[in-house]
């Protein structure tokens, strides 16, 4: 649930610095974790997070509250910032996986929960393209709803579903040819 105070701030046509401080204190941890899972380095994550909030402040008045949570907008800024960072720096991009995410993927692929398959999946994920990995990450490891993913990637919801389905199909093909 979004707190009422935050909605009041977001509905303001002009946000002051103190308003932004409230939002910063609210969302810093989430954004930092999100960035950290991608770069696996505290220093880089700190830099990128501060960049994210600077950009968010600069275009805060452009944000209009239309039912989409402010966090989704911040995640969008953060993922764009990370993508541009990895593109420029040619650094290794990390994908932090956990067991629940892997189990979900296995369920979607309908391969059964055999340990052999589960151990294969991390290697298989590395063979995917970047956009596909982003999609998988947002859906299964960050656990966003389809709607939020669509908002972040600037796609329609149905298009997001289609892309996700194709990606899973591709994975299935690699596992069981």
């Amino acid at each position, binding site marked *: 649930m979004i707190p009422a105070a935050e909605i009041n701030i977001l509905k303001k046509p002009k946000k002051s610095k103190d308003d932004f*401080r409230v939002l910063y204190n609210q969302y810093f941890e989430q954004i930092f974790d999100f960035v950290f899972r991608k770069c696996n380095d505290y220093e880089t*994550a*700190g830099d990128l997070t501060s960049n994210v909030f*600077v950009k968010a402040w600069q275009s805060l008045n452009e944000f209009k509250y239309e039912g989409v949570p402010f966090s989704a907008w911040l995640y969008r800024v953060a993922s764009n910032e990370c993508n541009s960072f990895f593109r420029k720096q040619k*650094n*290794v991009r990390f994908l*932090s996986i956990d067991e629940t995410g892997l189990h979900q993927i296995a369920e979607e692929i309908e391969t059964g929960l055999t340990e052999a398959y589960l151990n294969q999946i991390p290697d298989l994920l590395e063979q*995917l393209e970047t956009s596909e990995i982003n999609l998988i990450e947002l859906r299964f490891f960050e656990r966003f709803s389809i709607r939020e993913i669509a908002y972040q990637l600037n796609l329609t919801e149905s298009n997001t579903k289609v892309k996700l389905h194709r990606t899973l199909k591709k994975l299935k093909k690699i596992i069981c040819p």
Partner: protein
Amino acid sequence: MNRVKVISRTEIDPKKRAAFKDFDQLESKIASPKRGWKHWRYYSVLAAVSAVSVLLIYLTKFADNHSSPSSGKVIEAEAPHPPSHEVISIPKRQQQNPSSEPILSEKFSSTDDKQQETTLRTESSRKIPSMEEEVPSMEETSSHVERVDEVMPVTDPATYQYVKAKPNMSIQAFYKLLGDSLHHKYHAEGKVGIRFKVQKDGQLSQFTIVSSLDAKADSLVIGLFEQLPPWQPATVNDSPVVSYAEVPFVFQDPD
């Protein structure tokens, strides 16, 4: 294409994360102006400030070179009026020290005139004792110094002519008269300075002792001057004015 490395999720240390949570630092990052060629406004301000500072340095360094030629021009403009005898004109003084205020209004230049007269009068007073030496019988060698106290009407400095007050006789005769009248009346060594007012009709009044020798000498000198015949009053452009005169009266021991 970026290489993607799949890792198992690690727990984030909240202490390390909190180290990066600093809103004030973020605020300074937001407030600091961006650098780059696109932000020409900042550079234009810098350039303007540096240009002004260079101009100031130039002005302070070469101010003397600039000011002296301008004052020189003013002198040239006022120089053509030649100083007459006993009449002191301003240009002569200004040529002596051109660094002083270059432009003076007419009102101020007339007051300058007065100062100039006093300086020149002291010069003439130095000459007079040498004249007195030629008169062997004189006990007292003296000169008279005048000062105009009355505010002069503002006139054109070119035509302004001030003639100081003087006795109705020649200066040598005047001092001979003084010496004869006090001869052998009082024996002392020293000088008594007397200052008095010369009215428009030449009458002398308001005697005051400027430099005192002793009480008897002072009263003798005042008594002498009270009996003097009227003087020729000082004139400005041939019209008489009130003026003051100072005369040093020197007592010498005849032995």
